[in-house]
């Protein structure tokens, strides 16, 4: 009987968490926008979330592009098809690795920070104090962070793909001696703007919404103790990584599956 009771309790908790998360997001983003007040907050958050994530995104993009080129070359050269290296590197970056790895790094770098920050705000009762001063914490604290995350991640993903392709070019052309002309021309012939680049951007926007939402909600909903915040931060990284990987499969099936 205990087992069934636990199952019921967990189910109810899950669903009420989804409900609370939706209410939080709804309260944060469905409101009359106040640009004069909101925009500086938004810019500040773009700095914290986006600009400060640049280094890790650029460095990992470069190395992933280089590794892709190196691994792809060793396989393609067996078939005498090393000219298609550019196509392989750019398609795998634009369609999959760019959006997905960016989202995973973003969850670890910015998502956990968001959760910890908001969780600590809650634990030190700053959110309650804001409400006491008739400032809606959803609009003052949550909304700019959410929009900044949604805005930053597609930019980061595009930078990741671009830098990755440059890394692939470095290894493929400069080091392994693939012909530069065919590297670029086969890449350009096979990559389509709508089909590949735009779908990659759509993917990263979806991931951005999911990761930022989970991060903010976990912080907002954290148990206001040090242990609760640490658990919330862990949950953010785990849940958003799993959500990204699961959603990626669904989106890939929808976009490229037919």
């Amino acid at each position, binding site marked *: 009987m205990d087992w069934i009771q636990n199952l019921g309790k967990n189910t109810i908790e899950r669903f009420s968490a989804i409900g609370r998360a939706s209410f939080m997001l709804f309260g944060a983003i469905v409101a009359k926008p106040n640009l004069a007040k909101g925009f500086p907050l938004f*810019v500040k958050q773009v700095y914290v979330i*986006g600009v400060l994530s640049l280094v890790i995104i650029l460095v990992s993009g470069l190395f992933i592009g280089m590794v892709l080129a190196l691994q792809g070359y060793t396989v393609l050269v067996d078939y005498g098809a090393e000219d298609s290296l550019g196509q392989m590197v750019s398609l795998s970056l634009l369609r999959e690795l760019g959006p997905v790895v960016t989202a995973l790094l973003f969850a670890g770098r910015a998502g956990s920070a968001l959760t910890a920050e908001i969780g600590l705000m809650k634990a030190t009762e700053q959110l309650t104090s804001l409400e006491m001063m008739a400032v809606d914490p959803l609009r003052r604290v949550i909304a700019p962070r959410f929009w900044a995350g949604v805005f930053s991640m*597609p930019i980061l993903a595009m930078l990741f793909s671009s830098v990755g392709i440059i890394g692939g070019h470095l290894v493929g052309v400069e080091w392994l001696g693939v012909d530069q002309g065919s590297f670029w021309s086969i890449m*350009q012939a096979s990559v*389509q*703007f709508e089909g590949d*680049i735009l779908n990659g951007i759509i993917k990263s926007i979806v991931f951005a919404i999911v990761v930022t939402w989970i991060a903010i909600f976990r912080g907002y909903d954290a148990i206001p103790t040090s242990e609760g915040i640490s658990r919330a931060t862990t949950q953010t990284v785990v849940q958003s990584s799993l959500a990204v990987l699961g959603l990626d499969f669904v989106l890939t099936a929808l976009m490229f599956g037919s």
Partner: protein
Amino acid sequence: MISKKIELLVGFFVALGIAALMFLALNIASSGMSGSGETYNLYAKFDNIGGLKVRSSIKVGGVVVGRVEEIKLDTEDYAPVAKLAIDTRYNNFPDTSSLSILTSGLLGEQYLGLEPGFIDETVGILGEGDFIEDTKSALVLEELIGQFLFSQGSE
């Protein structure tokens, strides 16, 4: 108030994002013949289109002049018909031109090779909606091998 430095860095970040999008759109994706230019349509009927696909390129002497827009089956004689979209810059092909399905490289993808025909007074110019009559079908490897074995056996 947020400092000038943060505003500057955010501006830099956004500019970097726009630059990345431009880089991807202009350098990585196929520019030019991606359906943006003016095109006109020709049709061609084949016996067998092999591995020809929609968006396969149409080349004259190796230069891309258009793309295959649609492939469907003629319901009367069940022959595949390809609808070709050709750049209007190249609108002077005589109707003696011939089309053949070729393969780039040994394992590469298939494309249409357009061979412009001769021109004299009796020969018209291909315009919107015309059929190219002289077509050569794709070489299907299995049929080739079959013919080869058959001719070996009959000797």
